[in-house]
């Protein structure tokens, strides 16, 4: 069984899970009492861990580790801050996304208030991507329940000029010129809460988007009601929600090697926010959303917690490791594409973010 490092970001710190020889060791809290909304493992040059950490007292920051979490580095100058002319202040970092292979120093950050920042030094310092900040749609973006943030940043794996982001609310935006200009890309995604136009150009409450690295024109999208797939680089979206017990949820994640395989964690909504029938179930499609299977082996039958948008992930192993963390502080792992699960951590604070990497 491959060796895996699992970054578990919670509301009160970071935990690290390490699987060796089939056994898990979980250590923490690292960065105690920080809200960890974003974690990333940059494997392009060795392994750098990146964490978006927010102190309720002392503000947000980005810290990095090049030694598997034994020590953490943070520059004196704020790694991410809004320029003075914007009049804005960083609330928190929601996403950290290593760039493409041919730009190994590039790391993107999605932030609150809705903005994208770009680093050209491996995540030590970032600059505002003004093309999105100055977008004419900005005055019309609204905060979702968790805040107005860019929660998803998906750099194209081979074309450094192309990036897709998603925000809640605001929807999906994409650039093909390195961030200088952006266009909304939400055709076919419903915003039921905008009755005057349920399919607007922008303004959707998109919860998460996932891209498949081997098929970069394909995306999967979990919306505030609605699950979608695009096969044309987000020119258009088609519903793939049939067969799911609910079209509501937060996370969505693609298999690392099989472009037709995607995972989600449905919740009932809107009056309630529980897993359907109070059962813990990850849903997997193996035909790009044409049909869905409930995965339950090893998962609890009575479960009323939820899985947040960045708390479901895969690693790069084959068969794939699949992981999710709950608001009730449990983390479950599968080593067989989701066919079976084991609990690797419990009694943690709410899990907000999760990323896994093969060592």
């Amino acid at each position, binding site marked *: 069984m491959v060796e895996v490092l699992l970054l578990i970001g919670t509301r009160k710190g970071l935990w690290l899970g390490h699987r060796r020889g089939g056994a898990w060791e979980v250590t923490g809290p690292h960065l105690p009492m920080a809200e960890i909304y974003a974690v990333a493992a940059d494997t392009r040059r060795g392994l750098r861990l990146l964490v978006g950490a927010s102190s309720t*007292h002392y*503000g947000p920051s980005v810290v990095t580790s090049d030694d598997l979490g034994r020590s953490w580095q943070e520059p*004196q*100058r704020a790694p991410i*801050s809004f320029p003075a002319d914007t009049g804005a202040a960083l609330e928190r970092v929601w996403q950290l996304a290593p760039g493409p292979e041919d730009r190994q120093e590039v790391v993107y950050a999605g932030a609150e208030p809705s903005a994208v920042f770009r680093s050209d030094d491996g995540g030590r310092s970032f600059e505002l991507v003004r093309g999105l900040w100055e977008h004419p749609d900005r005055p019309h973006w609204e905060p979702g329940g968790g805040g107005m943030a860019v929660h998803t940043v998906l750099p194209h794996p081979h074309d450094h000029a192309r990036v897709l982001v998603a925000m809640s609310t605001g929807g999906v935006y994409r650039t093909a010129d390195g961030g200088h200009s952006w266009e909304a890309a939400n055709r076919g995604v419903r915003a039921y809460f905008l009755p005057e136009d349920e399919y607007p150009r922008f303004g959707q409450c998109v919860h998460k988007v996932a891209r498949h690295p081997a098929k970069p024109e394909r995306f999967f999208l979990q919306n505030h009601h609605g699950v979608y797939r695009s096969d044309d680089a987000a020119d258009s979206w088609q519903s793939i929600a049939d067969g799911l017990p609910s079209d509501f949820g937060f996370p969505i994640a693609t298999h690392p090697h099989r472009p037709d395989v995607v995972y989600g964690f449905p919740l009932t909504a809107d009056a309630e926010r529980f897993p359907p029938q109070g059962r813990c179930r990850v849903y997997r499609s193996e035909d790009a959303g044409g049909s869905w299977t409930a995965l339950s082996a090893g998962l609890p039958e009575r479960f009323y917690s939820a899985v947040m948008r960045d708390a479901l992930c895969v690693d790069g192993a084959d068969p794939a490791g699949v992981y999710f963390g709950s608001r009730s502080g449990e983390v479950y792992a599968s080593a067989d594409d989701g066919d079976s699960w084991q609990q690797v951590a419990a009694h943690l604070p709410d899990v907000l973010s999760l990323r896994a990497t093969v060592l």
Partner: protein
Amino acid sequence: MRVTLVLPRTLRAEAGGAGKVELDLAGEPTLAAVLDAVGREYPGLERRLRDETRALRRYVNFYLDGQECRALGGADSPMREGAEIRVVASVAGG
């Protein structure tokens, strides 16, 4: 004018381990000017006390001669010679 910033234990690492930061300031400085000076010497400390718009962080209190600065002039609170500014984190969270 000399003023002293007294730091809680949780922030001392940002000042090289010091519990107090002494500053010599020209003119008639305010709390904002104190933090500007802190930022020149300890930028990692300064950004934990206020954000990039120079707004004081909501859950950080600055006690000047026993009064929290927001009851005075906030960031515009004037300093006096020998003033001691005690930084105290709000009791918050759960």
